[in-house]
């Protein structure tokens, strides 16, 4: 079995250790004997969504995000088809904001991909914190770090989790992130996946299911991962 992971525009969207998410998916495949190929796409490259099993859209600075959002219009249709066809996506921070309809900033509106029904508004101050969230579908807390000026509103969509500690989408409604088909959108970096092996395996299982019709993943020795997870959860979510 083989999974192909597409990393969109790492030159521009690579804030906050996003490389760690890629590394984590790759290693957790390899340790199970699943081949994993990472394809990096630059702004000038054609993104062939039909070849991809998982897409990572990371975070960038506002300025860099603006550059990317011009480009995204060109791939919007293919990206949408991929999402509607249950392609796996992990979108973090700026990438998460780009999933929605728009991001209103002081300098004007940044059009998003409209892949998920959500929108973002700039706010002040920046929301910066260690974060712990909960979601019954995930066996164990999800931990990470957030740092964003935007406030995101997900309407009727399912959140990625309920905030136990930190701010989440907007610091108001207690939601963090979004789940839509096989898309995970979140403000959590840290990076997200290494300390949350259950989330990584969720993305991998979804991708395997879509490609090979199986969700079966060999169990790994995740003691170190869970120790690091528990450390954050216990320290910040007493």
């Amino acid at each position, binding site marked *: 079995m083989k999974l192909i992971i597409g990393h969109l525009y790492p*030159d*521009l969207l*690579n*804030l*906050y*250790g*996003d*490389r*760690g998410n890629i*590394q*984590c998916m790759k*290693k957790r495949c390899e340790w199970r004997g699943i081949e994993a190929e990472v394809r990096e796409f630059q*702004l000038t490259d054609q993104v062939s969504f039909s070849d991809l099993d998982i897409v990572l859209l990371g975070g960038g*600075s*506002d*300025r*860099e995000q603006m*550059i990317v959002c011009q480009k995204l219009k060109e791939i919007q249709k293919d990206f949408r088809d991929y999402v509607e066809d249950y392609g796996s996506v992990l979108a973090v921070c700026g990438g998460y904001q780009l999933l929605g309809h728009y991001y209103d900033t002081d300098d004007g509106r940044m059009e998003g991909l409209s892949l998920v029904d959500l929108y973002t508004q700039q706010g002040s101050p*920046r929301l*910066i*914190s*260690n974060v712990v969230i909960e979601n019954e579908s995930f066996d164990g807390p999800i931990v990470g*770090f957030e*740092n964003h*000026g935007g406030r995101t509103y997900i309407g009727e969509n399912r959140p990625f989790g309920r905030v136990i500690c930190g701010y989440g989408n907007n610091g108001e409604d207690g939601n963090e992130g979004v789940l839509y088909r096989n898309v995970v959108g979140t403000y959590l*970096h*840290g*990076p997200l996946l*290494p*300390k949350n092996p259950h989330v990584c395996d969720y993305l991998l299982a979804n991708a395997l299911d879509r490609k090979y019709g199986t969700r079966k993943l060999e169990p790994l020795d995740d003691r*170190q*991962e869970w*120790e*690091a997870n528990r*450390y954050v959860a216990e320290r910040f979510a007493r």
Partner: protein
Amino acid sequence: MRVRRLLSVWTAKLISTACRMAGKQGVTLAGKVALRIDPAILRDLSAQVRKEIFVVCGTNGKTTTNNLLCAALEAEGGKVVCNHTGSNMLPGVAAAFALAARLNGRIDADYACIEIDEASTVRVFPHFKPDYMVLTNLFRDQLDRYGEIDITMELLDRAMKMAPEMKVIVNADDALSWYLASESGNPCVTYGVPEKTADTPSLNEIREGRFCKRCGERLDYEFYHYSQIGKYRCPNCGFSRPEADFKASGIDMGNGISFTVEGHRLRVGYRGFYNVYNVLAAYSAARLAGVRPRSFDRMLADFNPQNGRMEKFVIEGTEIVLNLAKNPAGFNQNISAVLEDGREKDIIIVINDNAQDGLDISWLWDVDFDRLREESVRSITVSGIRCQDMRLRMKYVDIPSELIQDVETAIKARLKDGCGNLYVLVNYTALYSTRGILARLEKADGKGLKKSR
């Protein structure tokens, strides 16, 4: 308000002494209180500096560059006010002056060398306008404090515009720094390394600013020295690395560092290519203040700042190098410096997440730790508050590490079973405590073998 000034100076000195006796640094507190008592203290004291005031800014290399510059000015007989400890926000800057003042509230100084945290420049410059700013480089660092590198650049830009006559001594090889300085309208002096040096590994590094800040086009690079430091040019608008005023050439990294600038050969017992830039930046600034090249070289030979930047210790026969590494660019350069030492070695990595470190440690994943998969690396020990994250980081490049959360226990373990050559890489708040532990152990060891550099 002379009474206020006196009271301010005395209280600062009292607090500093009391804190030192209690084993704490206390510089920040002393500065805070001094400013509270006399808000004009920094303005008044800095105005008494007879010649030039230098400030040093930039993500990495501030402390080393600033201390080198201070030592160079002193080597020519100058009296210098300097924030040696690296306390570089407004209170730390105020404390440097207050603690340097005499009990009569007067300061006897020819120069001031002050490193300032980039975000604090706009808070310090209302108190005094420096004559020179050294701008070393701009990398991602402590993103939770500043938001993003763009925000840091905006703050520095505002600071430069607050002091339009200030000369900016800038690293020509860093596109971000050069863009900032060249667009500021301030007069500029540049330094750089114009030729590609041999065997600097081409890394899969995270590089900032790959896109032209002026027009947004992707920059072309003829070569990189490290991170985004190199020879760049914008194919669209022509923005490019300028010809440097102070050029380092003939760089030799065999045993320490040596290179030629203005026809003079400089030598320093430091490892690490990034130290070429630190020495070159300090040299450029010192030359502008009239320091003679020979005095500078002589100063370098004795330079031992004892501040945890490549600082050496010998304990129970084990040679130990302590070095600060607080962001991806710094850490990658640190790894290069460790690997330049071809001997067997043990490594301890100490990671904290206190406020001054940046609460967010995700940058660990932007460091190329896989390069430590070398035969000469005997063992890696992870320690400090976030040792769990560090162990996980190593696990995901298939390098095993031992977790010992307590730093002293970790050091003692490697003194006992290590190979006698130990590197301790620490981030910011771990530096002071780790340095204290090493100094104490070295003293207790007694035999104390004189430090060889």
